[in-house]
């Protein structure tokens, strides 16, 4: 099989750059794709993916603007602009710059990280329920963060402890599931077991402290974007800056791994190594996001789901997932802030209530396509 026909046959993910030596006009772009060529380098773009990406980005921008404008204090779009550039009314400037903007950024980053991690793991396991949060990473983070809040033998701040907890849960899970099997199933089941243990530990902790401490630990048990740690957000931003491009690179072989192992190997994918890399990346992204917002795992399910329903069936819609995850997160937090004002609903609860029926539908519908 020569390079060219392999190229046609392979469902390459859309926006990946393909450096080529052959003159561009020799090769027809595959159906539904555009080729953008600059000199010797040409870029193969799937049209639909481009449209979906643009659409999601537009929606994200609109919702973000609404996010900055709406709340207990309402602002007009021009007022938002003046507040952003720092020339507005001081209260509005404070409202936008100190309260809403950091929260919005946290929503973007956590949403994207959760969704990309979810998409990676779903593709790996060929199961749309296999997201990092469901397999215990969230529970590990919650248990450690709660321990920190209720003041048990640690001086680390809750976000740092959440990170440690997520890492611990993931490390134990990796340890137990060593040897790696097809689709990372051992990893998933070991993770669910570990998650159950950490869940029990969290409940034990909460049952032993005064209600005031249990209240203080509450945000870490549901997930919220209210007054998050700046340090954790910066760390997550760094993680996303490295992790998302890495995810795109890995997605190339991941696209092939959707087929059976034999076919994937036929494409020359080093299966074992690639599986571990993908799992690790998903775990790291989730851990960093959990350290910011707590367990908002449902986004890792909803984001890729939206992305997949919009995108074509080929490939792994990572960019669309990231955008959709961020969109869901911003929208959910906006709803949580507005719905019962002045009382805020934590974003984790909103996503669970929105995602819940969806989840049930996935579970209960006739299995047309058992994925």
């Amino acid at each position, binding site marked *: 099989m020569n390079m060219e026909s392999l190229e046609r046959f392979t469902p390459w993910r859309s926006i990946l750059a393909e450096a080529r030596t052959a003159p561009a006009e020799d090769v027809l772009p595959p159906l539904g794709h555009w080729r953008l060529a600059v000199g010797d380098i040409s870029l193969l773009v799937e049209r639909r993916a481009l449209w979906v990406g643009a659409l999601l980005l537009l929606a994200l921008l609109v919702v973000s603007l609404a996010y900055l404008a709406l*709340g*207990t*204090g309402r602002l007009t779009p021009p007022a938002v602009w003046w507040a952003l550039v720092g020339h507005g009314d*001081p*209260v509005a400037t*404070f*409202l936008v710059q*100190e*309260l809403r903007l950091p929260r919005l950024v946290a929503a973007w980053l956590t949403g994207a990280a959760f969704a990309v991690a979810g998409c990676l793991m779903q593709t790996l396991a060929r199961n749309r329920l296999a997201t990092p949060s469901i397999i215990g990473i969230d529970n590990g983070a919650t248990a450690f963060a709660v321990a920190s809040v209720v003041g048990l033998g640690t001086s680390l*701040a*809750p976000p740092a402890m959440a990170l440690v907890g997520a890492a611990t849960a993931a490390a134990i899970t990796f340890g137990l599931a060593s040897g790696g099997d097809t689709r990372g199933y051992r990893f998933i089941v070991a993770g669910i077991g570990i998650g159950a243990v950490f869940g029990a530990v969290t409940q034990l902790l909460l*049952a*032993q*402290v*005064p*209600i*005031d*401490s249990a*209240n*203080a630990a*509450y*945000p870490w048990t549901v997930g*919220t974007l*209210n*007054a*998050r*740690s*700046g340090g954790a957000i910066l760390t997550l931003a760094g993680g996303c800056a490295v992790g998302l491009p890495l995810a795109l690179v890995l997605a190339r072989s991941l696209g092939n791994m959707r087929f059976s192992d034999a076919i994937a190997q036929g494409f020359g994918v080093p299966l074992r190594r690639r599986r571990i890399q993908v799992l690790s990346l998903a775990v790291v992204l989730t851990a960093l996001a959990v350290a910011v917002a707590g367990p908002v795992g449902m986004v890792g399910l909803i984001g890729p789901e939206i992305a997949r329903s919009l995108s074509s069936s080929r490939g792994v819609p990572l960019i669309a997932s990231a955008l959709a995850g961020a969109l869901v997160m911003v929208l959910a937090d906006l709803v949580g*802030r507005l719905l019962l*004002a*002045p*009382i*805020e*609903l*934590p974003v984790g609860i909103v996503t669970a209530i929105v995602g819940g029926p969806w989840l049930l539908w996935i579970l209960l519908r006739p299995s047309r396509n058992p994925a």
Partner: protein
Amino acid sequence: MLHVTRLAAAMAGLTTLLTLSTAQAASVATAHGEVEVPDSPERVVTLYEGALDAALAVEVTPVGAVTTRGGDGVARYIEAYLDEETRPAIVGVVREINLEAVLAERPDLILAAPQLSDEQYTLLSKIAPTVVPEARELAPDNWQQEARLFGEALGREEALDSAITEVEERASALAGAIAEAGEGGSANLVRWMPQGPLVMSDALFSTGMLAAVGLEVTDAGLVSPGGAHSDPLSLENLSRLEGDWLFLATLNEEGDQALDAARQSAAFARLPVVENDRVVPVDGQLWTSASGPLAAQAILDDIEAALLP
């Protein structure tokens, strides 16, 4: 020292813009260092039940407060001190404070709980001077120190001191009356749960009030040092509750129901204190989580009603 610089920046910048131009004379020692507070704050937001209690005790009605129960209001014993026109606006629940709602009240002083997270403090302190009491080991007189700090921040130290003195005087008067009536002795405070009772520490606010009226409060050695209550107690160890009085806290309005439930347990029914009918059902919300001068008075009301009928 990061706090101090942040604080200074906040003071210089936003606070002056937001607050009325009151002279900033007083400075109080909080968990986050010295905080300058306005002379006579007019728009106070309380994010802590103890702070709401202390403010009302010195006749400052906050413009904003967090809910305690059920999502729609403040604790029951507090209701008596509020009138409809000046009711504080709700700015969130204890578990999730709505920072925008706090900002919308344009406070010039914020009183918060010792458990306030650092991130929330950073933001709140940019809205207005935020007073957070030092988190301390449990002790029966913690509430006095917290209330005094809040009183100081409100610029009403004397009023608060006299509120505390009133509580102390009433307690010692009650102690005399109880001793005279021969109703004194020892007491336990217990929360009844299906898994087993929780014995409350003798270092709590409410157990401190019991001690103040001359009752000898014990936790029967069941509460680990620093803990607020024991683990759910094995029924086999119920006999360790040897006090003359048993205060049975329940979070429901129907305290009698909890008592009925408890009575159905054989191990409970055979306690001497139950046989002598010296079990007092009390409001768990007030007895196990409130603090402040008004709560103290409410608890003393309960004690008086039970011991001196």
